[in-house]
C-alpha cells in the first residue's frame, strides 16, 4: 500500500520549504521569529507561534527526510542520514557514545517513542535547588495533558515484545515496580523500526505533527542550513549568520544566509545551543553557558535467553521500571531507570564490544539476545555536576563529561539489578557490557563478577541518547542562562526552548518533558510578542 508522503503533498499545496543546498546566491531572510532547530523544542514552538499569527522561520542543519526516505528500514542508511555525526558523535575522550538526531524533526524523527512526564521529584528539585518558577507538578500538568493529546501519547496497548517482556517478567518475579511505557504513536504497526524513521508516519514526531502544522499556518522551513553565529547590538540579537550545506548535508557550499528577526529562539539541543552561544561570544557574565550538561549515562547488560527474542521487531520500548529510581538513599549513589533498547544489529554489535573467537561464538545468538539498560539520573548530587560543552578553535562543539565514584556506584548498582532481572526472567547467561565482562551462568556468579568490575571510562561501555542542560533555566542569573520561561537573562529578544534548559537530567526519556515545557514557554512568548 502506498503511504502518502506528507511533504510531497504539502509542498504541492504551497508549503514554503526551502533546501539551502540549492541556494546559488547569498540570501537575506526576515521573520517575526526565527527558530534554530526543529526537534522537540523547535517543532513545538513553531506550531504555537505560527498559529498565533507570527511569521515564523524554522532553520534546520539536517536535511528534510520523510516517510518516503524511510522505506529501506535500513540501520546503516538511517544512521548516516538522520543522526549527528552518523551516530559517531561522542564525548571528547570517546568514552560515551551519543545518539542524537540531525534531520528535520531532530531526534523526534528517530527516537524510540518513549514519552514520560517529568517526574514530580525532578520538578521539586528544580524549584527547590535551581530556582525554577511556575513549573511545579500542578502547574505543568495541563501542559502535559495538552501535549499528550496533541501527540497521541498513551501507554502502549499491545503486548510487549519479547525483549521488553524480559524486563517485565524479571520485575514481576522480583517484586519490583514496573510500568507500561507511554508512546507518541497513532496507528502504529508495531514494527520496531522507530530508530530508522517511521515509514508509515505513525510516530507523532515533530516531522509529521507540529512542523506540518506550522507550515500550514504559513511558516517557512529552510533545511541544510547551519547557523554559525548570532550578532548583537544594543542588548539585543540583531541578526544571525548561517551557511548553506551541500547535498551531502555536510560540506558548506559557500553561500551565506543572513536572517533578521524580531525574536530569536534557540532549539538546537544541549550540545549545539551552547556551542552557538559560545561561538557568538554571547554575553555570559556568570560563565554559565555550557555548564551542567547531562546525559543519563547508560550502562548495559546482555542476556542469552532460551527463547527466541528477535528484539529488532516490535515496539522498541514498552516496559520500564522505576524501582531503583526514587526510593532509597541517594547520598551515596544515583537512582536509575531500567529499560530495554531495541536489538538493532549494528547498534548491538557496537555495544557488544567483544572481538575474535568470543565475537564469532556469540554474535550469531543475536536472535536470542535480550539487552537491558540502566539510565542513570545525573545532576541531582554535588558529585554529579554534569559535563561541559566548549568549542574548539574552529567553533565546533566539544563535550567533556567526567565520571565520578558517585556515578560509578550507580552504574554498578544498575548492572547488578539488570543481571538479577535477566536471570529471574530465565536467562541462560548474562554478560555486563564492559571490557572485563564475562558470560556468567548464574545470578550469583554475575553478582560476584559485577561487584569486582572497575567502573572506569573506556572499560565500562557507556552511551547516551538524552542530551540535556548546558543552558540552564532559573530565576537566579548567577546560576542560569535563561529564566524559567526560556527568556535569556541578558538579551531581551533571545529565548531558548528545548532540553538544553533543564537544570538537571529528567530521570526518564526526555522528549515529553521538552514538549510540555516548550508548549508552555512558546505560548508565553506568543502572548509577549503578540499581545491580545
Amino acid at each position, binding site marked *: 500500500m502506498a503511504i502518502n508522503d506528507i511533504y510531497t503533498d504539502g509542498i504541492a499545496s504551497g508549503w514554503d520549504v526551502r533546501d539551502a543546498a540549492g541556494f546559488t546566491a547569498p540570501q537575506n531572510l526576515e521573520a517575526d521569529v526565527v527558530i534554530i532547530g526543529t526537534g522537540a523544542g523547535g517543532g513545538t514552538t513553531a506550531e504555537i507561534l505560527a498559529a498565533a499569527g507570527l511569521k515564523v522561520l524554522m532553520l534546520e542543519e539536517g536535511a528534510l527526510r520523510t516517510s518516503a526516505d524511510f*522505506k529501506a528500514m535500513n540501520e546503516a542508511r538511517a544512521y548516516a542520514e538522520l543522526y549527528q555525526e552518523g551516530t559517531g558523535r561522542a564525548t571528547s575522550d570517546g*568514552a560515551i557514545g551519543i545518539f542524537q538526531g540531525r534531520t528535520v524533526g531532530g531526534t523526534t524523527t528517530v527516537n524510540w517513542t518513549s514519552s514520560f512526564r517529568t517526574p514530580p521529584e525532578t520538578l521539586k528539585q528544580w524549584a527547590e535547588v535551581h530556582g525554577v518558577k511556575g513549573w511545579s507538578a500542578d502547574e505543568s500538568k495541563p501542559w502535559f495533558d495538552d501535549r499528550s493529546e496533541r501527540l497521541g501519547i498513551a501507554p502502549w496497548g499491545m503486548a510487549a515484545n519479547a525483549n521488553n517482556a524480559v524486563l517485565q517478567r524479571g520485575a514481576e518475579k522480583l517484586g519490583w515496580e514496573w510500568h507500561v511505557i507511554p508512546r507518541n504513536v497513532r496507528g502504529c504497526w508495531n514494527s520496531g523500526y522507530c530508530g530508522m524513521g517511521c515509514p*508509515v508516519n505513525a510516530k507523532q514526531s515533530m516531522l509529521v505533527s507540529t512542523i506540518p502544522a506550522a507550515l500550514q499556518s504559513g511558516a517557512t522551513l529552510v533545511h541544510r542550513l547551519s547557523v554559525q553565529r548570532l550578532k548583537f547590538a544594543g542588548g539585543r540579537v540583531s541578526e544571525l549568520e548561517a551557511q548553506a550545506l551541500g547535498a551531502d548535508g555536510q560540506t558548506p557550499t559557500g553561500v551565506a544566509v543572513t536572517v533578521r528577526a524580531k525574536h530569536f529562539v534557540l532549539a538546537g539541543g544541549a550540545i549545539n545551543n551552547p556551542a552557538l552561544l559560545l561561538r557568538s561570544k554571547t554575553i555570559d557574565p556568570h560563565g554559565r553557558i555550557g555548564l551542567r550538561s547531562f546525559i543519563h549515562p547508560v550502562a548495559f547488560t546482555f542476556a542469552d535467553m532460551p527463547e527466541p527474542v*528477535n528484539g529488532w521487531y516490535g515496539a522498541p520500548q514498552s516496559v520500564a521500571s522505576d524501582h531503583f529510581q526514587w526510593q532509597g538513599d541517594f547520598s551515596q549513589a544515583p537512582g536509575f531507570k531500567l529499560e530495554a533498547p531495541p536489538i538493532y*544489529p549494528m547498534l548491538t554489535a557496537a555495544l557488544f564490544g567483544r572481538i575474535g573467537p568470543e565475537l564469532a561464538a556469540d*554474535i550469531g545468538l*543475536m536472535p536470542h539476545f535480550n539487552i537491558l539498560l540502566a539510565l542513570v539520573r545525573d545532576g541531582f548530587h554535588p558529585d554529579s555536576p554534569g559535563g561541559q560543552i566548549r568549542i574548539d578553535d574552529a567553533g565546533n562543539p566539544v563535550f567533556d563529561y567526567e565520571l565520578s565514584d558517585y556515578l560509578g556506584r550507580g552504574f554498578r548498582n544498575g548492572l547488578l539489578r539488570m543481571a538479577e532481572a535477566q536471570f529471574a526472567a530465565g536467562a541462560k547467561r548474562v554478560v555486563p557490557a564492559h571490557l572485563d565482562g564475562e558470560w556468567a551462568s548464574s545470578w550469583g556468579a554475575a553478582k560476584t563478577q559485577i561487584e569486582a568490575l572497575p567502573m572506569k571510562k573506556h572499560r565500562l561501555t557507556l552511551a547516551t541518547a538524552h542530551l540535556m542542560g548546558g543552558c540552564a533555566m532559573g530565576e537566579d542569573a548567577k546560576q542560569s542562562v535563561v529564566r524559567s520561561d526560556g527568556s535569556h537573562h541578558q538579551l531581551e529578544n533571545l529565548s531558548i526552548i528545548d532540553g538544553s534548559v533543564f537544570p538537571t537530567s529528567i530521570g526518564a526519556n526526555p522528549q515529553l518533558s521538552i514538549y510540555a515545557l516548550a508548549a508552555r514557554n512558546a505560548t508565553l512568548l506568543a502572548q509577549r510578542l503578540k499581545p491580545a
Partner: protein
Amino acid sequence: MNPASGATALGRRDFLKLSAGSAALLSAGAFSATLAGCSQDQPPAAGYRFLRAPDIKLFIALAPVILDTTLPIENRASSLDALAKGIDGGCALLQAPLQKTLRQLFDLLNTGLTRRLTTGVSEPWEQASEAEIRAFLQRWENSSIGLFNSGYRALTKLVAATWFAGPVGLAAAGYPGPWAPMFDAVNAA
C-alpha cells in the same frame, strides 16, 4: 624521514614505560602524533573521503582478527574493501574534533616508531601476523591506561559496527531482515 629508521626492537617493559609517559603527555585524552615527527597532511586515498592508504591497510589487517569467522574466506578481498569503504563513510560524517582524534590514532599506528612502541608490532600492518595483531589488540584492551583502552574501543567499534551493518555481517548475526509485513507494504508499487 623514514619513520622506521629510528628505533631498535623494544620489549614490553619499554612499551609500558612509554605508555605511561605518553598518557601523561596527552592530558586532553587525545592521541598525539608528535612522537612520530612526520608530516601528517597526506590526502585521503583515491575514492575515499577520510582514510589514507596506510589507514586502509591497517583496517584490512585488523578486521580478520576482530571479526574472526564472521568474516568468510570466500570473497574476502571484496568484503574487506567494502568494509574499508564503510568505515571511511562513517569517519567522514564525524565533526572535526573527533576526526582529529582519529587522525592522531591512525598516525600513531602508522608511524614505525610509535607503532612499535605502543603496539609491539614491528612490521608494517600488511606484513604483521594475525598472532601479532591479536597480541596488540589484547595489550590495548587490557592496558591500565585509558588512552589505549579508548584506542581499542575505537578500532574495534569501527570494524564491528560497519561489518554488522552489511549483508554478510547481518546474516552472521542472524538478522532476518526488515519486518516483512511493513517492508513489503511500504515498498509495494
